[in-house]
């Protein structure tokens, strides 16, 4: 969530502040030596001359742009922006964080006006009396330093969640791939081979030979022919190869359930029908 901060400054007040300052300076110079300084005082006083007013307008616009650039640091994330508009008023709109303290907005506006006036005066004097320009640059920098303080954030909102007890579990790190298991669907005569180790690759043979990584890779359920011995092994890089498991279903006389999955821990017999003679043996096979 963000907020929109809008600063409005009366442009005529800024113009007259600039003209007033230069008028005072010119009168001081004139008082020091009227004859010698009359011409200098005349030209350094920003009066109502048309070309002076145009220059003042340009100086104000430049100062406002500089202020907007300085404010970029305080805008809120990817939606942050600083826009300016100068007509009767000088309007500066910023997108700020939701935690911006609204109570600081008014002093921020006053400091923004001070910055703009002093930066414009710096631009006026830099080509006439550079030694005077330095003073206004310093005052603009001073105003900016206090502008920075007006962007203090409010404290973060109270969290509605609390820390729970940290729960940790310890599991043995497997060093060996799990033994492949078989699943047979009688209706379709499809034999599936699976392995509990994630990322393992299964290789199988259907001729009774010992499967290796050079054997056929298991990709999809096999169409099983009764009496065929399927042997499978599962491998994964970084782990020891699994035990070899085998599947044999000699017939399905009388129908029945699908054959059970064989596992490496012992025999399983296929059952489900009257004469269901399907067997499944899982045992380590010496390659």
């Amino acid at each position, binding site marked *: 969530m963000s*907020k*929109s*901060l*809008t*600063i*409005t*400054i*009366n442009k*005529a*007040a800024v*113009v*007259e*502040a600039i*003209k*007033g300052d230069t*008028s005072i300076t010119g009168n001081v110079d*004139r008082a020091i030596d*009227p*004859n010698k300084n*009359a*011409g200098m*005082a*005349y030209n350094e*006083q*920003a*009066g*109502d*001359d048309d070309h002076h007013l145009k220059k003042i307008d340009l100086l104000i616009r430049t100062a406002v742009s500089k202020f907007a650039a300085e404010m970029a640091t305080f805008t809120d994330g990817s939606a942050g922006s600083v826009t300016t508009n100068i007509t009767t008023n000088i309007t500066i709109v910023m997108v*700020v964080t939701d935690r*911006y303290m*609204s109570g600081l*907005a*008014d002093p*921020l*506006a*006053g400091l*923004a*006006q001070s910055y703009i006036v002093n930066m414009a005066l710096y631009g006026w004097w830099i080509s006439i009396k550079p030694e005077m320009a330095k003073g206004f640059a310093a005052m603009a920098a001073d105003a900016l330093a206090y502008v920075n303080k007006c962007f203090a954030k409010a404290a973060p909102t109270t969290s509605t969640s609390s820390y729970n007890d940290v729960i940790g579990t310890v599991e043995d790190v497997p060093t060996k791939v799990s033994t492949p298991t078989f699943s047979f669907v009688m209706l379709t005569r499809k034999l599936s081979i699976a392995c509990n180790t994630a990322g393992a690759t299964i290789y199988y043979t259907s001729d009774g030979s010992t499967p290796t990584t050079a054997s056929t890779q298991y990709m999809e359920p096999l169409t099983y022919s009764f009496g065929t011995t399927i042997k499978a092994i599962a491998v994964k890089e970084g782990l020891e190869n699994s035990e070899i498991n085998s599947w044999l279903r000699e017939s399905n006389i009388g129908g029945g359930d699908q054959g059970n999955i064989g596992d490496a821990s012992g025999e399983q017999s296929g059952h489900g029908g009257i004469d269901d003679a399907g067997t499944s043996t899982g045992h380590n096979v010496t390659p």
Partner: protein
Amino acid sequence: MNITLTFADIAETVKRSLSIIAKRSRDDNGNLRFEEITLGTREEGLIEDYLKHAASDIAAQTSAFVTGYSDDTLTLTFPSNHNSSLETPLSDACGNYCVAYALYSWFNVTSPGIADKYRVDCQRLMDDIFVMLHTKNKPTASADPSNPTASVT
């Protein structure tokens, strides 16, 4: 604001001044300066030349404000923010400068002993002209230095 110097009018002032000086001023021997100041046609033409020289001086010092110059007149125009209260004294100073210059030039030839007074007058008047020329009105102040406003939504 405009100031127009008409050389013919200033010439009459010069002649009047010379006439007064002729009646009142005496040289070191106590003699009236009547002979030194009698103006014939040729002398009157010389006075007019002196006035044009003076006008040239003024034009040089006020060049930023000169908007017209002819054989008969010199016109100065000031921006709108010039202090209009100075129009009369400024016009008078310009005219007086021309008179002082003409008298200085005249007496520099005829009576150098009293010429220096008019040289000093010329310098003082030119300084006054320059100061009054370069005097602006105070800038307009229609807006109060009101506090800027801010809103957060």
